[in-house]
């Protein structure tokens, strides 16, 4: 069966806008899991509220790296992970809560405790995986730590589409905690058609940045100069410098940094991303890759009126082959203006 990517974030733009909303957490540069940036708790005494929506569905899977606790201190009842229909404030189908010790967590379905786990190592990154099916009789909610099943429920998980997840630690009903919290490398897939619960793969998201102008330079750099230097800053500097298109079908492409894959690491996808905005109502953008002189450009993407995170996932290169170190070393990213002007 095919899994459909709904969202991913490695925070490597240096901007929390890679998520729908983030409250009381900010981009951090220490204690990252991969790369330069992660999400970290802004004020130790506050809650954290990270929200991400996705298209209505009855089945999801995904995961992220999480690190919290300082050994013996508590989140005590705070929500770590929640799944909603009707958005936050709607119906909470599944949630995972920390308990009175930072080594413990519990699984709840419709507010009833269904599982316990006691072996989190405080202040150490672990991978939190989830696989959820919404069904009135044969649903499931399975939680995996570092790829191993640790809590599960089979039965009634509801009968309405889910569309939002929320990541904590957060609870209005319990006292704030001084514990630190870090998060990195998040993804969520639509897993409709999955016939039984399966451990979601543990994925890491490394980021490449532009380091030279590529094959195409049809957009307008503002102010004038090399094109790549208008789009290489982390975090984005919005209108300080940028590239502009005032007609459709204009291409720009960029040489990218690279890195050496570790032994046993495979590239599953290349995911071009931008922070872009439209000036009117109908401008769009398409994102792609260029390898061995051949382009592969994805579908046109809608934009917001303010700079926002837009991405397109490419599981094969322009020649239809799976990605490898050689393609990684030479790939260009393409941005193409689309829509009407």
């Amino acid at each position: 069966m095919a899994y459909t990517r709904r969202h991913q974030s490695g925070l490597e733009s240096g901007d929390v806008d890679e998520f729908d909303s983030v409250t009381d957490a900010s981009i951090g540069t220490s204690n990252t899991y991969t790369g330069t940036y992660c999400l970290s708790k802004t004020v130790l005494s506050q809650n954290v509220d990270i929200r991400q929506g996705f298209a209505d569905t009855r089945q999801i899977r995904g995961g992220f790296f999480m690190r919290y606790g300082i050994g013996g201190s508590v989140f005590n009842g705070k929500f770590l992970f929640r799944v909603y229909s009707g958005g936050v404030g709607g119906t909470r189908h599944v949630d995972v809560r920390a308990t009175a010790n930072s080594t413990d967590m519990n699984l709840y379905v419709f507010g009833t405790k269904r599982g316990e786990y006691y072996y989190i190592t405080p202040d150490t990154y672990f991978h939190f995986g989830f696989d959820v099916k919404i069904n009135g009789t044969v649903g499931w909610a399975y939680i995996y730590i570092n790829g191993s099943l640790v809590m599960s429920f089979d039965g009634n998980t509801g009968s309405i589409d889910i569309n939002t997840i929320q990541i904590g630690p957060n609870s209005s009903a319990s006292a704030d905690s001084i514990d630190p919290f870090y998060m990195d490398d998040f993804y969520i897939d639509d897993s409709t058609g999955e016939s039984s619960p399966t451990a979601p793969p543990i994925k890491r998201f490394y980021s490449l940045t532009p380091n030279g102008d590529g094959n195409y330079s049809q957009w307008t750099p503002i102010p004038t100069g090399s094109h790549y230097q208008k789009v290489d800053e982390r975090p984005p500097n919005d209108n300080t410098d940028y590239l502009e298109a005032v007609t459709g079908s204009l291409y720009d492409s960029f040489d990218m940094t690279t890195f050496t894959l570790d032994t046993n690491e495979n590239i599953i996808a290349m995911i071009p991303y931008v922070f872009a905005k439209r000036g009117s109502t109908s401008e769009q953008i398409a994102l792609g890759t260029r390898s061995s002189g051949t382009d592969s450009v994805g579908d046109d993407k809608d934009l917001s009126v303010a700079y926002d995170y837009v991405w397109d996932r490419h599981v094969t290169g322009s020649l239809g082959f799976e990605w490898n170190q050689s393609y990684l070393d030479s790939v260009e990213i393409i941005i193409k203006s689309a829509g009407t002007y």
Partner: protein
Amino acid sequence: MSGSVSDTQVGAYVETEQSIIKNTLVGAYAETEVIQLDVTLVGMYVEVQEEEMIYETVIVPEGVGALYQNVPLITITKR
């Protein structure tokens, strides 16, 4: 008195002209400022995961050694 009438007519004329000029300026502003696409950051995520070994028990012919051994069959990466 005639001068007074004349001033009124001139005043009305000027007011109409200002209205026309104002409408023209609004139209020009819309064309140059609204229809555009801006990109301020470009990057590429490389989605990576590790290979997983799949083991399968196979029968080894008699005389070679143990009858059963766990041997790595293939390496896969779940997608």
